[in-house]
C-alpha cells in the first residue's frame, strides 16, 4: 500500500524519525509489530526493509505511524533522503507484537541503540492501560548520540538507567551490567522484562532473567525477504519442539519469550 511521508527528520546523528500518514496502520498496529518498506523503485535494493513501528501519533489531524531508524546501509541511507510528501510503498503490520501480561506491576525495558524504537510504543500503551505500573528503562549505546527517546520515557515517569560504552552519558560500560545489578538487588517475580537491541545484549538479558525465572520478552532482528511467512529465510532456532526446530521471526515473532530461543 502506498502511504505519504509526513515527516522525516534526523533526531540524532545517523538516526531518523519518519512519520507516515496511514489510518490503517495507526489503527491496527500493536507494539512490537513491524512493516516492510520498499526503498526506491528499482531492483537494487531489491527487497523490502523491515522496520518496527515506533509510535502512533497524530500530525495535523492525520493518523500516523512513526518509525525510528538508524542509517546502517544502502536502504536506510536511501530512506534518510526521502522527503515529506513523497509516497512510499509499505506492507503490514506484520508480526505478533509484545504480549502484555495481565495485572503486571513492574515493567522493565531494556534497549540497545535503535532497539528503543518498539519499546517506546509498548511502554506508552502499558502505562496508559495499567492502573498501578512501575516502569524501568535500561538503555545503552556506544555514546550519548546513540541514546534516544529519553523524553518519551520521562513523560511516563519511568526510572531511567543509562549506560554508554564510551561513558559519554550515564554509566560507562554495557547496559547489561546495570541490568545485572538491578536483577540481583531488586527484581522479583512481579517484574516482566521487555528487551530489544543487538543479539548479544538480548542473549545476556535472557540469561540474567532466566536465572531468576523472571519473564522476559525479546524482539529479534533477522534479515527478511518477505516478512509474512512465505520465504522461511528469517528463522531462529527454538528450544520447543524436536531437536533443531525453527520458528519464523516474521510471523511467530519478532517477539519471543526469551527462554524459547536457542541462544
Amino acid at each position, binding site marked *: 500500500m502506498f502511504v505519504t511521508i509526513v515527516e522525516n527528520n534526523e533526531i540524532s546523528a545517523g538516526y531518523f524519525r519518519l512519520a507516515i500518514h496511514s489510518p490503517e496502520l495507526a489503527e491496527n498496529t500493536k507494539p512490537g509489530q513491524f512493516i516492510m518498506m*520498499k526503498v526506491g523503485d528499482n*531492483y*537494487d*535494493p*531489491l*527487497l*523490502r526493509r523491515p522496520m518496527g513501528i515506533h509510535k502512533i501519533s497524530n500530525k495535523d489531524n492525520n493518523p500516523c505511524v512513526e518509525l525510528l531508524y538508524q542509517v546502517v546501509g544502502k536502504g536506510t541511507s536511501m530512506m534518510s533522503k526521502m522527503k515529506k510528501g513523497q509516497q512510499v510503498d509499505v*506492507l503490514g503490520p506484520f508480526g505478533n507484537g509484545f504480549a502484555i501480561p495481565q495485572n503486571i506491576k513492574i515493567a522493565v525495558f531494556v534497549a540497545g541503540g535503535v532497539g528503543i524504537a518498539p519499546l517506546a510504543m509498548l511502554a506508552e500503551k502499558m502505562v496508559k492501560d495499567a492502573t498501578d505500573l512501575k516502569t524501568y528503562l535500561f538503555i545503552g549505546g556506544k555514546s550519548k548520540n546513540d541514546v534516544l527517546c529519553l523524553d518519551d520515557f520521562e513523560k511516563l515517569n519511568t526510572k531511567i538507567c543509562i549506560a554508554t560504552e564510551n561513558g559519554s552519558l550515564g554509566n560507562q560500560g554495557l547496559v547489561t551490567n546495570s541490568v545485572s545489578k538491578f536483577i540481583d538487588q531488586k527484581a522479583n517475580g512481579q517484574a516482566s522484562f521487555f528487551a530489544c537491541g543487538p543479539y548479544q545484549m538480548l542473549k545476556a538479558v535472557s540469561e540474567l532473567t532466566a536465572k531468576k525465572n523472571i519473564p522476559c520478552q525479546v524482539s529479534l532482528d*533477522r*534479515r*527478511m*525477504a*518477505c516478512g*509474512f*511467512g*512465505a*520465504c*522461511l*529465510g*528469517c*528463522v*531462529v*532456532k527454538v528450544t520447543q519442539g524436536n531437536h*533443531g*526446530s*525453527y520458528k519464523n521471526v516474521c510471523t511467530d515473532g519478532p517477539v519471543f519469550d526469551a527462554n524459547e530461543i536457542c541462544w
Partner: protein
Amino acid sequence: MSIEPKKKKINLSVEIAGIQFQNPVLTASGTFGYGMEYTDFIDLNLLGGIVVKGLSIKPSHGNSPPRMVETASGMLNAIGLQNIGVEVFINEKLPLLKKFNANIIVNFFGDTQDEYVLAAERLNDITEIAALEMNISCPNVEKGGMTFGTEPKITEELVRKVRKVTSSPLIVKLSPNVTDIVVMAKAAVNGGADALSIINTLLGMAIDIKTRCPMLANVTGGLSGPAIKPVALRMVWQVAKAVDIPIIGIGGIMNAQDALEFIIAGATAVQVGTANFIDPSISVKIIEGIKNYCQKDKIGDIKDLIGTLRS
C-alpha cells in the same frame, strides 16, 4: 485498468501435460509457502497455478540461519528445503488449497533416489493435485553432495524411476548449474518428463568482510531474482529449440514484460518466484499485464505467442 470501450476476449489458457491452466502464470516453489500465506494479499482463484514449497517424504528442519542475504538485484537463499513433509501437507494444507481455482502443483525432492520415489508414490493419484514438479537441484546424498540434476545419466534414471510410480503429470525442474542445459533437458525427456521447469537458482555466495564469515551459515546458496533473468531466458530458449515438451519459464520474472520475454523465447507458462516477496500481489498484476499486451498487439490467444522469437 484499461479504459478502452470494447475489449476482445483474449484466451490466456494453456495446456501442459494434459492439464488446462486458465492462464500461464504460476507461482514458484519455495516463494509462495503452501499458498495460504498469500490469501491476505491476492485472490488465489485468479492464478494459473500454485507450486507449493518443496516437500520430502519426511519433514525437514532445513539449514541453520542465517539463510538469506540480498545481492545486487537478487538474493541468495539457503533455506535447505525446510518443509512439513508430504503427509502433513496432504492432511493439513491441501484441504485448504483445493478450494481455489488455481491448479495445485506439488514440488518434491529427496536426499536419495528412494526418497524421491517414496514421495512421488505418496503424492500419486490425489485428484486435488494437478501435477508433480520434481526438483532435481538437490544434493545427492548417495553421491557425496553433487546434485541429482547435474549428471544426465542420473537425471534420466531418477526421472524414470519416479515416472514408473506416478500417473500424475510429471514436471522436471532443471538446475541451471550445468554446462549444457539441453543435455539435461533431453535426459529428463528420455526419463519420461511431461514438461520442464527452467530454471532453479544459480549457486552463489556472499561474504561479510567485517567478520570474514560467509553471509549464509551454509556458505553457499541459491541466487534468484532479476539478476538471473538473462541466464534463465537463454536456457529456456535453448531448450525450447531442442525438445518437444512444454517448458515453464522461471527466473527473475518481476513483471508482465519479463513473463512475455519467456513466452516469446518458448515457454508455455511461467513461474513467479522472488517477486512475490517484494509484491505479494505481483502474479495477478502480471496476468493483467499479459492480457493488456495481447490486447494491444492483437493476439487473441496467448498460445500464438509461444516461441515466436524472430531471429
